[in-house]
């Protein structure tokens, strides 16, 4: 593991608090993506594949710049393009770098049944440890952003690590390093939020983008990847960014009340039948009957 220097905050399917929790203080890291200065060059996609050592995939062509349809198990970073026709007939060419959002309340980790397959570091990075992954894909169920991708061959799930290996060594993520326009920034959550708010205010005050704003959804406790959008009122226009993402209610019910209610019922059931035996005993067949013809 290249993660010795990262403190663990949460472990999937781990009973009790994770070992080493809160032994040291750490600040949350954050990726800030300014969609208003992204030019869709895909350098970040290339840097991601290069750094993580995967093969390039075959591209598809459907008369748009979207030459990759979706994230894949070995393609963790994708620019989503949208040619949006405005009411006045003009075109807004929207592009958003899509990847794992590194939620503060990660639905994938909450849903995961395999101990240690998903960990959250105290700096906010949510990382998959494939050696503990069992391929059940419950993480897909918990993720409101459709990020984790299943590999049919290895039967494991993969996603963006926020370059936990680079970050733990004091480097910025590969995508950030490659961005030619400077629309990608990396730093503490506090600094990135301040920078994003300032940029959004600048857009509102000095350009026509009166609805510009920061995307840092509260429904998942905030994310460690934040966006500035020209139109923060319609995030879904940016390649289906959910307006109000949440960990699904049924995941919470299943991992919360159902888990302790179920455990309690099983223990109660076993105790119940034991008490019955102590109180009433077995149903003895009258032995005297056996002598009857």
């Amino acid at each position, binding site marked *: 593991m290249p993660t010795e220097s990262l403190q663990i905050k949460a472990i999937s399917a781990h*009973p009790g608090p994770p070992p080493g929790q809160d032994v040291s203080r750490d600040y949350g890291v954050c990726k800030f993506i300014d969609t208003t200065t992204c030019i869709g060059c895909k350098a970040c996609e290339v840097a991601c594949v290069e750094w993580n050592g995967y093969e390039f995939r075959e591209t598809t062509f459907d008369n748009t710049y979207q030459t990759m349809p979706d994230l894949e198990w070995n393609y963790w970073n994708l620019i989503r393009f949208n040619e949006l026709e405005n009411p006045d007939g003009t075109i807004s060419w929207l592009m958003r770098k899509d990847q794992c959002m590194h939620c503060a309340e990660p639905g994938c980790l909450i*849903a995961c049944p395999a101990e240690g397959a998903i960990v959250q570091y105290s700096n906010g990075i949510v990382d998959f440890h494939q050696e503990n992954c*069992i391929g059940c894909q419950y993480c897909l169920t918990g993720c409101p952003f459709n990020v984790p991708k299943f590999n049919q061959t290895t039967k494991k799930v993969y996603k963006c690590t926020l370059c936990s290996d680079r970050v733990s060594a004091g480097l910025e993520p590969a995508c950030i390093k490659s961005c030619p326009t400077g629309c990608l920034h990396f730093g503490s959550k506090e600094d990135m939020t301040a920078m994003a708010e300032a940029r959004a205010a600048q857009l509102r005050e000095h350009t026509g983008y009166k609805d510009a704003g920061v995307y840092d959804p509260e429904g998942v406790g905030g994310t460690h990847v934040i966006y500035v959008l020209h139109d923060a009122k319609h995030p879904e226009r940016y390649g289906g960014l959910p307006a109000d993402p949440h960990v699904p209610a049924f995941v919470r019910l299943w991992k919360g009340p159902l*888990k302790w209610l*179920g455990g309690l019922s*099983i223990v109660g059931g076993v105790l119940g039948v034991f008490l*019955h035996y102590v109180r009433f005993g*077995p*149903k003895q067949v009258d032995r005297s009957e056996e002598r009857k013809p």
Partner: protein
Amino acid sequence: MSTGVITRGGTVVPPDQIVRYTFRERLCHWINALAYSYALLTGLALFTPHLYWLAAVLGGGPTIRFWHPWISLIFFVSIFWMHALWRGDMVHTERDREWTRNIKYYIQNRDDMVPAQGRFNAGQKQFYWIMFWSAIVLLLTGIIMWIPETLPHSLHWVLPIIIFIHAAVALITIGAIIIHIYMGLWMTPGSLKAMIEGYVSKPWARAHHRLWYDKVTGAKPSSR
């Protein structure tokens, strides 16, 4: 003392004993029971972190993830086979409803206070139908959980609901199976032998399943 009787099903019946389950019924029951036990233990491992150690005991997380659906298929096939064998014996009667109303006497072992029962008593029938309908729900939800990657993203919202239902219904079967195992192993001596060796004593049959006893022995129907 007469010698044992060999039935057409191949079961050797000692004197003063009655065939309770044929070999086919016993085989079906034990295939079902073993498959259910595996699905139960692996399912519990995936249900709660406190029991994830069961995964290690049974070969590791990826192993149980692979085998849980396959072994469960055996459970489903055998319960449908069981349905073909026992469907006729599992129909609820008016007498069963009276038995259920007076279940507290049965629980208190005051069996003379409940109506005489046929081959299966009302409680066994209820257990059977709980398992049968639960199996169908577990099968339908389980197939989707088996291969969620085939589900388009627009339908991903059903996954948490499906997993919740799968877990909740499995818990209902666990409640039922706790009672079933307790009754078979401890509460009703002779039932485990019946399910393994196939026969029961005449007093056992008369005490627990009077109507069935009358029918198979050709005795005069009793009032209760």
